[in-house]
């Protein structure tokens, strides 16, 4: 080990020297720098390296630099890097307001021509997928896959105690109460909200279940008149649902101080029987050696306007920096990532739902993957998550509101008043 360390640091030192020279001499004309999310799973790195090797065969002289960032840091760093002098050529992004703002501010490249060129990604996927990164029919990004969110539950625990999947939010609360009755020290559903987005994903879905798409759209894109913004009592109802779940004993005692990693670990270590987690979590749980779980969609809200068939769906993909020195090459590179073969390969290594589903049936995924793929295909609608959908300040206010609600420091009415104030200010600034 110590020999290895020594050797590596020598290599590191040599690399540093080169790096300094590189920085001084300007970027290599054939270098593609690509940013990705760090905790997307180990499979992604391998997939990209393989794809890069393949791409280099047809495009000799191209080199790749892959850089990754953890979730929270990513959102900040990508903005900083794009505004700065040394942005990546191509970068991961969620479809949503952030991606659109980068397009509007001229930092994300218009890829329409490249996408429609021969071999371009526009030929690989449906218009529905393409629209996730489009403004007025112009493509400012290329979706690779979508993520969703489900309840994961321990099948062994549910069987042992005769529990069943809930069909309404109220039943979900009842489920928590039952679990607490079995053993009050068990946290039925660890939230892990210390990064704030865990509850944000839940409230996204609750807003939808209560208000429906039509009830929220004008508020979310700030197009409603100022005196009507976020005034729908449904928002308060959704928050109240969170409070009801909390008082039903669902969450851990200190959700705002618990990391989502801890919450995940509580589930995979079978300390907790249930968790609301992204579609990407299945691969993670498998990786941690826990496979005995089932899945269900967030249930309906009685009397809610939302379509219970609609699922949480965030398309994700790549955008290209407007400052890249070789846009065509970069466009070819990302297009190659959604070729039939690569898309299938991506789907199988990542257990993800690819934007190009041509060869999806050939993918030999796990049971859980197949379940998720089927469910997403059968969804009758899609709900994008608030923290990428809303304008930055409103999104932040919504994130903070979740913390206040869970801590009991503000009532649903109070947090909605806060959000409304921020939304009005943001609308003003537009």
């Amino acid at each position: 080990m110590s020999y290895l360390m020594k050797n590596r640091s020598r290599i590191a030192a040599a690399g540093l020297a080169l790096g300094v020279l590189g920085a001084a001499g300007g970027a290599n004309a054939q270098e593609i720098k690509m940013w990705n999310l760090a905790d997307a799973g180990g499979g992604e790195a391998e997939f990209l390296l393989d794809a890069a090797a393949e791409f280099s065969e047809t495009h000799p002289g191209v080199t790749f630099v892959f850089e990754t960032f953890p979730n929270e840091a990513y959102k900040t760093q990508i903005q900083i890097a794009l505004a700065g002098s040394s942005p990546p050529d191509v970068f991961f992004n969620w479809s949503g307001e952030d991606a659109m703002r980068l397009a509007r501010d001229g930092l994300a490249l218009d890829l329409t021509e490249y996408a429609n060129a021969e071999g371009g990604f526009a030929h690989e996927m449906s218009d529905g997928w393409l629209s996730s990164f489009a403004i007025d029919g112009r493509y400012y990004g290329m979706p690779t896959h979508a993520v969703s969110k489900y309840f994961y539950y321990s099948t062994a625990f549910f069987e042992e105690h005769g529990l069943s999947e809930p069909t309404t939010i109220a039943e979900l609360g009842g489920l928590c109460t039952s679990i607490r009755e079995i053993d009050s020290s068990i946290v039925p559903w660890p939230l892990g909200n210390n990064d704030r987005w865990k509850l944000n994903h839940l409230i996204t879905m609750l807003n939808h279940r209560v208000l429906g798409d039509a009830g929220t759209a004008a508020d979310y894109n700030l197009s409603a008149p100022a005196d009507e913004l976020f005034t729908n009592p449904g928002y308060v109802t959704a928050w109240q649902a969170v409070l009801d779940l909390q008082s039903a004993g669902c969450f851990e005692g200190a959700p705002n101080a618990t990391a989502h990693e801890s919450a995940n670990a509580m589930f995979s270590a079978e300390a907790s029987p249930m968790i609301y987690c992204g579609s990407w979590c299945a691969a993670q749980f498998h990786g941690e050696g826990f496979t005995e779980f089932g899945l269900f969609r967030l249930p309906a809200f009685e009397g809610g306007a939302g379509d219970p068939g609609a699922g949480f769906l965030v398309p994700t993909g790549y955008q290209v920096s407007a400052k890249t020195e070789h846009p065509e090459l970069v466009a070819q590179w990302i297009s190659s990532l959604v070729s039939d073969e690569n898309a299938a390969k991506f789907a199988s290594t990542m257990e993800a739902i690819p934007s190009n589903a041509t060869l999806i049936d050939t993918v030999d995924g796990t049971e859980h993957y197949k379940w998720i793929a089927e469910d997403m295909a059968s969804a009758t609608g899609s709900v994008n998550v608030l923290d990428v959908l809303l304008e930055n300040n409103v999104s932040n206010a919504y994130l903070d509101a979740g913390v206040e609600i869970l801590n009991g420091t503000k009532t649903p009415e109070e947090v909605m008043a806060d959000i409304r104030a921020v939304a009005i200010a943001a609308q003003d600034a537009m």
Partner: protein
Amino acid sequence: MNSPFGTQKQAGGRRTMSSGASNAILLLPALSLCMIFIFVPAMLAISGSLYSYGLTSPTRDFVGLGNYIKLVQDSIFWVSLKNNLIIVFGSIVLQIGIGCVLAAILDRGITFGSTFFRTIIFMPVIVSAVAVAVVWLIILDPNIGMLNKIVQSVGLTPPSLGWLGDPKISIWIVLGVAAWQQTGFMMVLILAGLQGVPQERYEAAALDGARGLRAFWYITLPSIRNILIVAVLITTIGGFKVFDFVFVLTKGGPANATQVLGTYTYLQAFTLGNLGYANAIAVVLLLIAVLIGWLQLKVSRQA
């Protein structure tokens, strides 16, 4: 000249530089670095605070004092300022207070093992605040954290919202973690001062009947007055500079309860993209910095 060693030849060509020019050569590198990277950005922050613009937006709009008007109405700004003050005064009490006690014990209270204790207690100072915060993050974890276990083992109930999740106590936890790291620094700083107090002074005091705590109060403290002033200044400046601890421990949460001016500037600038507004917060920090700098000069001249 009839020196037996002959006359020293004056090197004719040598012409020494004028005093002004050589002053400039020696002074300018440091001065220009400070100017370019501290004062110019400070000026830009002041001018930038009069505009509204985003991190990625291509244009900026002049809003005059608009950002400042928003600032005084922004409760999170006042919470941040209050938190900075809590950290400043709390750190003075904890770090300098405890540091003083520990230093006094090391100086005259105990002999055996004093180097050992001094080394241990100073150790956290050289660990980066980020690493300190990450370790504490896990210790403070409400589900598996050590602190909960310890508190429960003595029969107390840990806060139900978590040490860092409860807005009423989270800022005090940040303060405590900072004290865990920095007290050793203050202890060693004060110890250095104590060791400069001549033994005769204590002997004279003993003859005058002042021993133990009275000697500490009447002899020791006045003797290390200068070092205490330096310690208070460093702590005050550090209290307004605080960023890393908060950023890693709480990111300003829960719901901005631990936000400080530094992290709030960062949040507004880089997370929310309100650069103009972030600059207005920064200007407040700058004003405080100038005030402290002025105080520092005042007392250092006096000292």
